[in-house]
């Protein structure tokens, strides 16, 4: 039931009412239906639960939630009040879960999580993946149906807003955020309070100040912001409303959320959340009966990485292509439509309600450094990482700033899959870098990662084993960026095209003497002479792999060898003696490169082979290998 709240007291009364019905013993089945779990059929699973619950006469609430983080084991289901955690649940398991677990309270062994040592865990909080995390932002995702504002209010949602509107002045909130040391989660790590302050101080002739949320999440391979927008949209909205009050009150603050085009579910959920908030009097005119007027509109991106850059994002909202412009005049003074503008990342906004409701001390007790005098003095709070690639437990991981890479990858992530050896971890996406094993004890915060030649970025973390070629990875990012550059600066457009050309030839075994020096010189110019952050950081993936994995470049250039066996022109497929001539590969080979009849050992004609790898996929005896 949605009601319109005319005052903070209305909201609090409603919350008490909700909480009274929702006792701690309530039976709840929460089914994760984040984009990851959906890719494993979670939507269908939720439907089956709905039908089966309707058929039974069990008193149990079905809660379809956003991403709960443990995507590796999707679809995941948690049964309350016991917090029993089930993984890789299928439709046929549903009736049993209802009768055994919901009704009788007993756990079904085969659906529980078992770690690589064979230990089984029953409760969600005991599963190592969760136990080693500090989940303050993501904790709500499992407790909330993102389409229900009631769920959000029941867990304390909009309480921070109520408190602030009732008791605090805008300047106090700006000051609080400043002293909390909250730094932007979108990559740059700029102190949010400093930004808020300049935007609040900037002259606004007509009182309009824009409060923007960057939900473009351009890092390909990261989905933290996606999970927050899909899983807990009201948290982001509440942060923005608080920001509107702190930065733009009294006056006419106006809000926009710019969401990546590839996140249709996030757009859907945010749209619904905004409509609910409007109906409840939490957005629009006279929020909670006060003088604060603020509304939020959603803008969908068009599929361009560069639109995550602040000025390109604003150009895009204004109806132009996403070309960044020089920021000699700060966007805090003249940003969107030339008005004072404050842009923060989704996760930055999501932190704001928590800082206000739990207090400064709570926030500054988590993380590194000392921010009491200088907001640049440390990295405070938690950070969400998207841990993916060659690691046992892929998913979303929230840990205190300053946790080591080793803690994240091994304790939480369970290390590389059996039989695989860790080689490198890529952080920060296309603007970040690759770090080798020797840096695994590096505490992950804004400044330390930058020192090591990488970047926090928005929080992508991709683990790689020996089967990833570092030169190929650099090549991947360079091509990504050459494609995604807006194309305006010669140094970025032509510079990246040439970096691609050089790395391409290295991958083909056509690298030349002097190519490494040429790459370094050109990289420095791309970094220095380009206008925006895209060009200025574009060489990071290249430079960091050259710094930590130089020998791979050298072996590509001088020995024409790719030790990871990835670069196609440098590898060969061969069939060994264990081939029993089953003909499976012959049948599949598109270029008829495989010879040998039934029961006769097959061979591959290298001149015909396109290295597509289909033969290896179908070989049941593992007789096919790659050599370099």
């Amino acid at each position, binding site marked *: 039931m949605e009601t319109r709240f005319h005052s903070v007291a209305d909201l609090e009364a409603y919350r008490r009412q909700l909480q009274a019905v929702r006792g701690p013993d309530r039976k709840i089945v929460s089914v994760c239906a984040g984009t990851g779990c959906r890719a494993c059929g979670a939507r269908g699973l939720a439907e089956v639960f709905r039908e089966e619950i309707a058929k039974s006469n069990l008193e149990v609430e079905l809660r379809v939630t956003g991403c709960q983080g443990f*995507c590796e084991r999707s679809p995941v289901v948690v049964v309350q009040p016991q917090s029993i955690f089930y993984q890789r649940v299928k439709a046929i398991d549903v009736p049993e879960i209802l009768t055994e677990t919901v009704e009788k309270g007993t756990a079904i062994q085969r659906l529980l999580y078992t770690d690589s040592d064979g230990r089984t865990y029953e409760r969600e909080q005991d599963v190592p993946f969760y136990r080693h995390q500090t989940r303050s932002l993501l904790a709500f995702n499992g407790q909330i149906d993102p389409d229900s504002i009631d769920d959000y209010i029941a867990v304390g949602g909009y309480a921070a807003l109520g408190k602030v509107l009732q008791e605090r002045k805008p300047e106090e909130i700006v000051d609080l955020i400043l002293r909390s040391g909250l730094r932007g989660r979108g990559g740059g790590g700029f102190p949010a309070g400093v930004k808020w302050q300049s935007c609040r101080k900037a002259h606004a002739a007509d009182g309009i100040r824009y409060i923007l949320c960057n939900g473009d999440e351009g890092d*390909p391979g990261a989905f933290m912001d996606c999970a927050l927008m899909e899983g807990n949209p009201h948290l982001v909205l509440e942060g923005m409303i608080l920001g509107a009050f702190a930065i733009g009150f009294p006056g006419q603050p106006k809000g926009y959320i710019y969401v990546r085009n590839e996140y249709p579910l996030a757009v859907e959920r945010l749209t619904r959340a905004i409509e609910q908030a409007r109906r409840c009097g939490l957005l629009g005119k006279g929020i909670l009966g006060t003088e604060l007027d603020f509304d939020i509109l959603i803008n969908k991106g068009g599929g361009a990485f560069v639109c995550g850059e602040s000025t390109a994002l604003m150009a895009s909202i204004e109806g132009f292509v996403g070309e960044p412009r020089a920021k000699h005049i700060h966007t805090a003074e003249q940003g969107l439509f030339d008005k004072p503008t404050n842009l923060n990342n989704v996760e930055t906004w999501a932190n704001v309600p928590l800082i206000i409701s739990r207090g400064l001390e709570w926030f500054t007790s988590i993380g590194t450094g000392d921010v009491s005098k200088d907001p640049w003095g440390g990295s405070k709070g938690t950070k969400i990482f998207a841990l993916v690639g060659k690691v046992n437990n892929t998913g979303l991981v929230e840990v205190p700033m300053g946790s080591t890479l080793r803690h994240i990858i091994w304790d939480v992530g369970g290390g590389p899959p059996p039989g695989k050896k860790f080689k490198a971890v890529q952080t920060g996406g296309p603007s970040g870098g690759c770090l080798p094993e020797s840096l695994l004890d590096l505490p992950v915060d804004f400044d330390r990662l930058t020192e090591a030649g990488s970047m926090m970025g928005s929080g992508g973390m991709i683990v790689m084993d020996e089967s990833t070629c570092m030169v190929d990875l650099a090549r991947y990012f360079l091509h990504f960026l050459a494609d995604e550059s807006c194309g305006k600066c010669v140094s970025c457009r032509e510079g990246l095209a040439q970096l691609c050309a050089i790395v391409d030839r290295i991958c083909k075994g056509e690298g030349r003497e002097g190519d490494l020096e040429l790459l370094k010189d050109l990289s420095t110019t791309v970094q220095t002479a380009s206008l925006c952050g895209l060009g200025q950081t574009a060489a990071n993936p290249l430079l960091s792999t050259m710094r930590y994995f130089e020998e791979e470049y050298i072996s590509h250039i001088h020995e024409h060898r790719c030790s990871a066996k990835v670069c196609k022109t440098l590898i060969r497929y061969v069939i060994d003696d264990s081939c029993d001539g089953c003909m499976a590969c012959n049948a599949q080979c598109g270029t008829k490169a495989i010879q040998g009849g039934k029961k006769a050992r097959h061979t591959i004609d290298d001149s015909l082979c396109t290295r597509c790898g289909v033969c290896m996929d179908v070989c049941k005896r593992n007789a096919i290998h790659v050599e370099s």
Partner: protein
Amino acid sequence: MENAELESILASHGHRPSELLATLQDIQGNENWLPRESLAHVAAGLNVPLSRVYGMATFFSSFSLKPRGKHVCTICMGTACHVRGAQRLVEHVEREHGIGPGETTADLRLTLETVNCVGACAMGPLAIIDGEYHGQLSTQTLGRLLKKLKG
């Protein structure tokens, strides 16, 4: 697309040039691509130069200026999917259906597209076929899924 339909899309965005991107998105949402006449109509309707509309339509990778197939297979080429072998999925479609990224089969049955991450990175490599997400794909599973497509 009927002119009346186009007009109602323009009207739903208040004929505001600042909503050019959203206007084009709605048209593509209806038509599955951006026909030439509709761009001209938008330019006239919003009173902005056609060169600006064309620039917008070619800048953003989600727009298609060519008709797309009845079925669309979008393969994620994000980093997480890349390190788990997304390139091989693309090569599979190239081999089996003779179309590269951004291309459509001659019978307008299938379009292959690539995208940089759809936020399900833990499930990579991943493809979206007609709006349905399919994670942890092998070339064989992808092949089966594409064969099963009707019509």
